[in-house]
């Protein structure tokens, strides 16, 4: 006689609160495969936890951004924001699609060069460029996005001994109605700093070649209109540059900051319902630039440094339930084999998490946490899931952005990262770390040996 399927017995107090608009079943739908590859098979082969990236989705997201902007503005160039996910395989997918590189450190600059990006297609942002970084950027002809007056001064010294003028763009921060305003990076527009810096660049045209203006408003910006404001202000600055300083500006870089479909913590609506369409951002920017007063044939190239919007959707984190228990206040708790060490974005998002196998329709709210033995290690404070038991597998969705660069080697080692190619074949693109790898740079002084 075959036995009945088992799920642990549960009892839940019914409370007369407001009903959840999204119902208790949200999140409970199983996800058994990714790109046609069964999740249990991936975990059996590569171990748990496991990061998985879909090459198909990477390319799809890239093409969606290009389509949204390219159908509204004649010249569009994406520059892949390295910090979002600088695994070489990921970068190379985007470079194959045609992306330039946007980097913010000497390390990222070398990574981009190593990935075959010509120096001239590398945009170098960031407040922390050292003299050596500036020299290297000038040597490979990357565009240096000037952040502050000290950096400008340093670059002039670096430029003095060089055969070619380093190419520069000015990073501008401005009031586009976004709160908080990112005013730490670049030169402020409204207080006149940006114009002053442009005058200094104009006075140094023998040493520097101004090619662009840049503005990155922030990240996960939910107001397309803010981009319209930024584009209008940047375009006006470019026109003034041309008219008053005889410095034509070849590109306007509106930065990144476009949201993914993740759900921000504290958001009432889930991400897919709260996030404006990419088309709205593209329309706001294109309208502003096309109406700014550039002469026909002198429209600047529009550069975008989208990060999150290109890569978040393509990433998954697969993991396994280690235990379930009950907390002092009666809440269910579920222990997973990954925590905020791997899923850094759990601090920002209520990540969508799916079970892998099929369950009954019984569900239970649970806190999800990881193996870190620290109170901060919470993957979800409360999520309604089927009656998971030790050994059950889960899929965390939309983890492609920032996790695989901001993850921490903390308490556990980082696992394999696998790319599913267009045929669904898995390729390890970053090996799981080992104790040996971790300890390789360590040194034990002689008196502590033996």
């Amino acid at each position, binding site marked *: 006689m075959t*036995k*009945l*399927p*088992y*799920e*642990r*017995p*549960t*009892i*839940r*107090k*019914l409370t007369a609160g407001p009903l959840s608009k999204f119902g208790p079943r949200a999140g409970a739908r199983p996800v058994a495969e990714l790109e046609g590859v069964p999740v249990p098979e991936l975990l059996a082969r590569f171990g748990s936890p496991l990061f998985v990236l879909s090459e198909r989705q990477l390319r799809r997201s890239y093409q969606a951004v290009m389509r949204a902007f390219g159908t509204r503005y004649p010249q569009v160039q994406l520059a892949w924001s390295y910090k979002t996910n600088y695994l070489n395989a990921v970068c190379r997918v985007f470079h194959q699609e045609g992306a330039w590189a946007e980097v913010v450190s000497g390390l990222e600059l070398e990574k981009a060069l190593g990935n075959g990006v010509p120096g001239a297609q590398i945009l170098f942002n960031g407040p922390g460029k050292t003299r050596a970084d500036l020299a290297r950027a000038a040597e490979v002809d990357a565009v240096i996005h000037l952040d502050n007056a000290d950096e400008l001064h340093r670059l002039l010294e670096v430029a003095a001994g060089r055969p070619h003028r380093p190419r520069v763009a000015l990073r501008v921060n401005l009031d586009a109605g976004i709160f908080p305003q990112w005013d730490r990076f670049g030169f402020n527009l409204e207080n006149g700093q940006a114009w002053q810096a442009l005058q200094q660049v104009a006075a140094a045209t023998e040493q520097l070649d101004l090619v662009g203006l840049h503005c990155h408003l922030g990240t996960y910006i939910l107001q397309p209109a803010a981009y319209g404001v930024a584009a209008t202000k940047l375009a006006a600055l470019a026109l003034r540059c041309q008219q008053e300083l005889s410095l034509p500006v070849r590109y306007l870089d509106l930065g990144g900051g476009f949201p993914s479909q993740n759900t921000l913590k504290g958001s009432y609506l889930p991400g897919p319902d709260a996030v404006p369409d990419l088309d709205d951002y593209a329309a706001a920017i294109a309208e502003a630039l096309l109406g700014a007063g550039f002469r026909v044939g002198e429209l600047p190239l529009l550069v975008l440094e989208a990060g999150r919007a290109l890569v978040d959707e393509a990433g998954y984190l697969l993991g396994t339930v280690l235990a379930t228990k*009950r907390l002092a206040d*009666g809440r269910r708790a579920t222990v997973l084999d990954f925590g905020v060490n791997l899923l850094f974005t759990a601090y920002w998002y209520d990540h969508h998490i799916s079970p892998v196998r099929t369950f*009954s329709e*019984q569900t239970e709210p649970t806190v999800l946490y990881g193996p870190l033995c620290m109170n901060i290690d919470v993957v979800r404070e409360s999520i309604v899931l089927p*009656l998971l*038991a030790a050994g059950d597998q889960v899929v965390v969705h939309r983890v492609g952005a920032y996790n695989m660069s901001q993850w921490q080697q903390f308490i556990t080692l980082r696992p394999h990262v696998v790319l599913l190619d267009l045929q669904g074949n898995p390729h390890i693109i970053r090996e799981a770390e080992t104790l040996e790898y971790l300890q390789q740079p360590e040194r034990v002084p002689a008196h502590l040996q033996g």
Partner: protein
Amino acid sequence: MKLKKNIATSEAGFVFNPATGDSFAASPLAAEILELLKAGQAPAAIQASLLARYEVSASQLQRDWDDLMAQLHQFQLLES
């Protein structure tokens, strides 16, 4: 380990405690256990019958049983 006498249970898993006015939703298996407890069956006998019929190990069932009883106790549904 006995359910309080005045607790009302339904086959669909609805549980009502007239003494406190609280109501509860039990999963099908929990509802089945409650019915058997209410009928006066001994825990060991109930567990044996579940083990015979369900795809579960004795140790897993014991852990889940303990958890359920702790919940029933917390909800004041058991005779003390």
